[in-house]
């Protein structure tokens, strides 16, 4: 079991796009994942304010939701996104890292349901939330 978790962790850390955005995995265990992405000027979506693009937040959300599914005890291995909906509550404050916490709250034989929240330094006011459905791979 810890081996599976270690493999899942290595897999998430080896994702080229996650590496390119300098995402760091803070937690990945029992269907819950926490990932942080630093502020990066390459990711600016609004040049007037320096606010990060929603697309970069999507990448963080998707990675974190996938990590939560992969470390759920009922999931045998990898996963793929079936659908992902993101609600953007407010602009992330420029200069601050964004942290996402995803929880895989229900798993069937074929589908994993996930919720995630992204915040910047003001942790009481989410920047965005996400809900998604992911594939579940057979137990090995």
């Amino acid at each position: 079991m810890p081996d599976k978790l270690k493999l899942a962790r290595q897999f998430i850390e080896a994702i080229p796009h996650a590496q390119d955005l300098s995402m760091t995995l803070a937690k990945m265990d029992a269907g819950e994942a926490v990932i942080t992405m630093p502020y990066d000027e390459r990711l600016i979506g609004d040049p007037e304010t320096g606010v990060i693009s929603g697309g970069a937040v999507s990448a963080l959300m998707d990675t974190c939701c996938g990590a939560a599914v992969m470390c759920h005890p009922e999931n045998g291995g990898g996963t793929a996104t079936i659908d992902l909906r993101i609600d953007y509550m407010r602009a992330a404050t420029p200069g601050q890292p964004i942290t996402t916490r995803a929880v895989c709250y229900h798993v069937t034989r074929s589908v994993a349901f996930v919720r995630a929240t992204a915040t910047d330094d003001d942790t009481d006011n989410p920047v965005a939330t996400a809900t998604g459905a992911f594939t579940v791979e057979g137990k090995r």
Partner: protein
Amino acid sequence: MKRPEPVQIVKQRRDDALRALVGGVPYIQYLGMSFDRRGDELTGVLPFDKKLIGNPLLPALHGGVTAAFLEVTAVITLSWSYLWEDIESGSLDFDPSQGTRLPRLPKTVDFSVDYLRSGLPRDAYARARVIRAGRRYASVHVEGWQDNRDKLFAQATGHFVMPQRR
């Protein structure tokens, strides 16, 4: 009767406007995206790049990249359709030497992506359709494909808050 404008001038004006709209956003440059234009129709183009991989074993495009690609296509297409009349009439002139301020982009309220098949390590294309654009809100649908136009790898619907006119 007024003579129609020479085609080069019309094209130049449209392409300048598109370049100003797209070129000012660092994240679009980061993804390596561009837009093809045929008249008023835009197609988002995302050339494949290793840094966009989400599953190195397959390899497949990152789901977040797919979402970002569709969202950028939706935002730019919505903005483009909203600015079109002003671009055509010449009342909006994107002359960089004049220091024209770029129009603000619409703000995404929510974006919901349907992943239909895994994104292959190939170029991807996307076209958005503005389903409804009111004064304050808009709803946009966008389709993404790779090798075959009929085989979508993802589609999405998003809601947006329209920018206030300057």
